[in-house]
């Protein structure tokens, strides 16, 4: 029962290979997460990092809000199932499952109970005393599962658990795992390369490629809304069809032109409303993706606008349906995977034959579009950016019959361009000047996306709390600091810088304190004093508690108690010895019986094989004799003779082989039978012994009560002392970030991340600190800066100032400030480290 948080996790090998980069994910309690991807994509590495079998190079791993980067696997309270089962071959199934609990010193009775519980769930009750050698693959995997669920771990990790099983068994185990998850209600993390397993099992699926997360989503969303071409191609069989194409908008319709083909589609612009508008210019190359079930054969012969021509190349019959392979290029062959090959799903081949040219109707609403170079979807489910063509005239931006006045500080020349408006820049709550109508509100998994119609164009806006409805007329205002206007490569108006960048180093307390002449000593002393006083109180509490207990017990008459208890112990031990003797006797008898039976069985088995072989031999000899009598043909005679010779030569070998095989089988049975007696005997003996020990200890403790209490007190104090030591060590860990010559005490949150991420290397690295321009203000102390100019955006006003770093480089800082300050004034800037972002410079690792 646990939440797991992976925070910017990296795995970098010593040779510099990044096996996993920037893995960030929140896993909620009871989720079934599947990592899927081609081999070598880092999915297993990530799982092994969660298990603690692999070190984390950078980033933090939280289990239940506790950082566990440096926690041993055994202390993480996880369980893992391996691809090759990894059962202990020298132990029986029972011992295999109990091993983990035994190492944790769980009482024997409880272990027994839990083993039976797990065996019952997995249907292993009859096999408990077998060794893994005598079990089939599916049973072994079940034992591995049982071993994992037995401890009731916080997280179950499964590393391709089914890939060693055959197809039928795999399907069966798949549903068993799904059922197990339902019953146990534990967090599962499952690694596989099989997309069927991923889609059927996962509540959420993580698709990975080359160490990077491609998409994290529910199976349905992965299928319907892939975020990039890789995910689109990876999920779904047969693979999605991809074509290179360009999109051109003509008023209300969009023309889709395919490369290497004369085919064109004309579709309603409303079907492509979410496609980022600047891709609709007929120049940007895109990938057009369509699944085979969204294509259908058009027999109407009307040459409609939403169908194209395909030359059929071959078929794949699947029984219930047929896959028709073809090419949209009339010269293509349809066999190779190319950017013109197409697969169409149909109920049957319908009398078609290779070489036919057919019309295929495309369901454009189900089509996917990806950027040609980045392969990222250009149809975001939640749009973040609006693009509209515009023109600039006399400090005014004109778009879609609306105008936006630019403040004087924005220097620009007149011309045409594309206006980029991030959704975050649009507001409908304030006093805007632009009229718009809400034509649709779409609910994308809790996020509401509003479609705002201006005159012709539609803008997207993610709603937070605004109470608006479809059909409402609203007034828009646009934050000019966040817009960009581009004309091709030229940027006419650029976004205002949001973050101010400055470099820094990380310093520990001793260095900082000695550099600053013991200025910070008081911080340390304070911290230590706090811990000391806290533990002093606790020690007093414990002492008082035990003093009272000892007082209470010292008045009792212990010597007579001792006498009676010693008598009890003697009688118990006698009883125990007798029980053991009886068990031993029974055990020996049972074993000798099995051995006797084994001897008989061996003989019988060998006898049976011998008899059978003897019969075969006799048959062959008889038939040969008969043949010799009746045959007159010489050629046939030679043939038959050599056959007979061969039989004579091979017969003894074959007989021996068969005997050995039969003996092996019998030996396996014998071993199983032995184990069935041995294992419960050992178990019962152990339980008996433990019970006896416990009883004796309890009786002894009764009359040794004073010593026991003293011991307990000592233990409690020791425990406390250890805790105190840890806390003192933590209190001594004070770190600073040195920025522009000033020391800022690093909050624990940031210090932890820095040290977890980089270890001791943290002190020699340079970091880039990014401070948002609205979280930095003018004050009496802090970074020194010289004002260079003032920006007036109407609603927002900024000061631009220059900060000179120690190495001489100058940074321009934007500071949100309402009042103007004369140019050249020296000011001090202060900020809170919590608001900033921190990045390691040389490896470009985002730390905070």
């Amino acid at each position, binding site marked *: 029962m646990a939440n797991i948080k992976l925070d910017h996790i990296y795995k970098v090998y010593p040779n510099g290979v990044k096996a996993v980069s920037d893995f960030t994910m929140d896993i909620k309690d009871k989720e079934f997460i599947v990592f899927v991807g081609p081999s070598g994509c880092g999915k297993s590495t990530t799982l092994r990092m969660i298990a603690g079998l692999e070190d984390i190079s950078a980033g933090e791993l939280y289990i239940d809000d506790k950082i566990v980067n440096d926690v041993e*696997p055994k202390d993480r309270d996880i369980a893992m199932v391996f691809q090759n089962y990894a059962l202990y071959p020298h132990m029986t199934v029972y011992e295999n499952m109990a091993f983990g609990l035994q190492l944790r010193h769980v009482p024997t009775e409880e272990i027994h109970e839990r083993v039976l519980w797990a065996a019952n769930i997995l249907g292993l009750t009859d096999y408990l005393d077998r060794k893994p050698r005598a079990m089939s693959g599916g049973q072994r995997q079940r034992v591995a599962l049982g071993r994992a669920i037995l401890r009731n771990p916080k997280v179950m990790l499964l590393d391709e658990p089914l890939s060693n099983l055959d197809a039928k068994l795999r399907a069966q185990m798949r549903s068993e795992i799904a059922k197990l998850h339902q019953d146990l209600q534990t967090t599962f993390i499952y690694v596989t390369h099989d997309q069927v397993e991923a889609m059927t099992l996962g509540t959420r699926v993580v698709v990975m490629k080359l160490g990077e997360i491609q998409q994290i989503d529910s199976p349905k969303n992965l299928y319907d809304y892939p975020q990039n071409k890789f995910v689109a191609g990876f999920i779904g069989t047969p693979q999605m069809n991809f074509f290179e194409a360009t999109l051109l908008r003509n008023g209300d319709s969009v023309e889709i032109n395919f490369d290497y083909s004369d085919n064109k589609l004309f579709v309603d612009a409303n079907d492509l409303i979410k496609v980022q508008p600047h891709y609709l210019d007929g120049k940007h190359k895109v990938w057009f993706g369509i699944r085979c079930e969204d294509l259908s054969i058009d027999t109407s012969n009307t040459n409609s606008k939403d169908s194209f021509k395909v030359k059929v190349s071959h078929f794949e019959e699947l029984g219930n349906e047929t896959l028709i392979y073809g090419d949209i290029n009339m010269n293509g062959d349809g066999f190779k995977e190319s950017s013109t090959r197409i697969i169409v799903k149909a109920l049957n081949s319908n009398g078609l034959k290779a070489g036919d040219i057919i019309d295929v109707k495309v369901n454009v609403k189900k089509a996917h579009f990806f950027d040609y170079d980045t392969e990222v979807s250009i149809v975001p489910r939640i749009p973040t950016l609006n693009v509209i063509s515009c023109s600039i005239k006399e400090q005014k931006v004109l778009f879609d019959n609306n105008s936006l006045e630019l403040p004087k500080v924005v220097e620009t020349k007149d011309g045409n361009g594309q206006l980029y408006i991030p959704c975050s820049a649009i507001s409908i709550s304030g006093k805007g000047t632009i009229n718009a109508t809400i034509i649709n509100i779409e609910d994308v998994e809790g996020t509401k996306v509003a479609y705002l119609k201006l005159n012709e164009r539609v803008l997207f806006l993610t709603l937070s709390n605004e109470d608006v409805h479809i059909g409402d007329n609203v007034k828009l205002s646009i934050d000019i600091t966040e817009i960009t206007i581009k004309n091709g490569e030229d940027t006419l108006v650029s976004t205002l810088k949001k973050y101010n960048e400055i470099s820094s180093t990380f310093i520990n307390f001793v260095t900082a304190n000695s550099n600053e002449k013991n200025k910070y000593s008081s911080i340390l002393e304070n911290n230590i004093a706090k811990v000391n006083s806290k533990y002093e109180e606790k020690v007093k509490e414990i002492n008082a508690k035990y003093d009272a207990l000892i007082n209470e017990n010292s008045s009792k008459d212990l010597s007579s108690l001792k006498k009676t208890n010693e008598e009890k112990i003697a009688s118990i031990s006698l009883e125990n010895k007798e029980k053991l003797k009886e068990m031993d006797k029974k055990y020996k008898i049972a074993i000798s019986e099995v051995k006797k039976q084994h001897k008989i069985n061996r003989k019988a088995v060998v006898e049976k094989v011998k008899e059978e072989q003897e019969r075969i031999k006799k048959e062959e000899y008889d038939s040969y004799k008969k043949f010799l009598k009746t045959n007159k043909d010489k050629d046939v005679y030679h043939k038959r003779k050599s056959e007979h010779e061969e039989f004579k030569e091979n017969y003894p070998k074959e007989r021996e082989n068969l005997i050995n095989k039969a003996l092996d089988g019998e030996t396996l049975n014998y071993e199983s039978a032995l184990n069935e007696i041995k294992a419960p005997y050992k178990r019962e003996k152990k339980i008996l012994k433990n019970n006896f020990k416990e009883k004796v200890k309890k009786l002894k403790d009764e009359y040794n009560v004073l010593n026991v209490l003293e011991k307990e007190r000592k233990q409690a104090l020791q425990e406390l002392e250890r805790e105190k030591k840890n806390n003192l060590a933590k209190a001594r860990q004070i770190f600073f970030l040195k920025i522009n010559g000033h020391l800022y005490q690093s909050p624990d949150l940031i210090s932890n991340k820095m040290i977890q991420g980089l270890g001791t290397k943290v002190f020699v690295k340079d970091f880039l600190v990014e401070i948002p321009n609205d979280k930095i203000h003018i004050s009496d102390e802090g970074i020194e800066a010289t004002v260079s100019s003032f920006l007036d955006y109407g609603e927002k006003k900024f000061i631009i100032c220059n900060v000179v770093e120690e190495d001489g480089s100058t940074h321009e800082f934007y500071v949100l400030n309402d009042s103007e300050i004369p140019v050249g004034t020296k000011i001090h800037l202060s900020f809170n480290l919590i608001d900033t972002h921190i990045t390691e410079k040389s490896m470009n690792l985002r730390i905070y």
Partner: protein
Amino acid sequence: MAKLERYHSKKFKEITSRALIYIILIILSIVWLVPFIYLLLQSFTESYDPTNIIPEVWTFQNYINLFTDPIYPFGRWYLNTLIIAIITAVLQTIITLMTAYAFSRLRFKTRQAYMKLILVIGMFPSFLGMIVTYFLLQMIGLSGSIFGLVVVYCAGAGMGYYVAKGFFDTIPRSLDEAAMIDGANKNTVFWKVILPLSKPIVVYTVLMSFTAPWGDYMMASYLAQGKQELFNVAVGLQQMMSKGRDIQYFPQFCAGGVFVSIGIMALFFWLQRYYVEGVTGGAVKG
């Protein structure tokens, strides 16, 4: 008919080549076995006669003499050897297997370098360091004791890690990992998971580390410094043959030789039942 001829010629070739192989093997085994048989037979003779292979008069007196002869305390030597060999076998097996496990499973910086270094050092004959060894033993006060030999034998035990490491490498790492997740530390993994799976290699290592001190002559004679009570069997038996009374004592020497080999044979037969193959069956996919 042609077919039959070919069949025969093939058979003929097979028979001749087999005959040749067997002749060579028989000659080799005669050369190898005769000394043993000779030794065994001579240990039962009453008086030694080099020209007679089969003794004229059979007797057990040589074996009785071994333990009653006041000049040569064979019983003492045998006990010495047994103590040294048993202690060495136990310690050396543990050290060797632990070293092998460390090299097989742990990844530390100088792992490769150590492995190569050990290989190179192992190429030097051990007697090169004999004099230094003596002074070292004198410094820790073990130069006049049979336990000095134990220390010498065990000191280099880790160098024999090679075979065991090869075996450990074949045990899947996922077993270690599963045990670690189950709550075991490296120590528990070694003793409770890996060792029970490695019976063949444990037996092999025990046998190797038992036989070496059992038959060692050079180090033992050097450290005994001529004191009879510190001899092991090899040094003692050699002493028996080196004082010009060789003819007289030869049958007794032979009896000693037979008695020495009995020890090793007993150990081998005892351990053989653990030497079963396929103990790893069923651990992982199969």
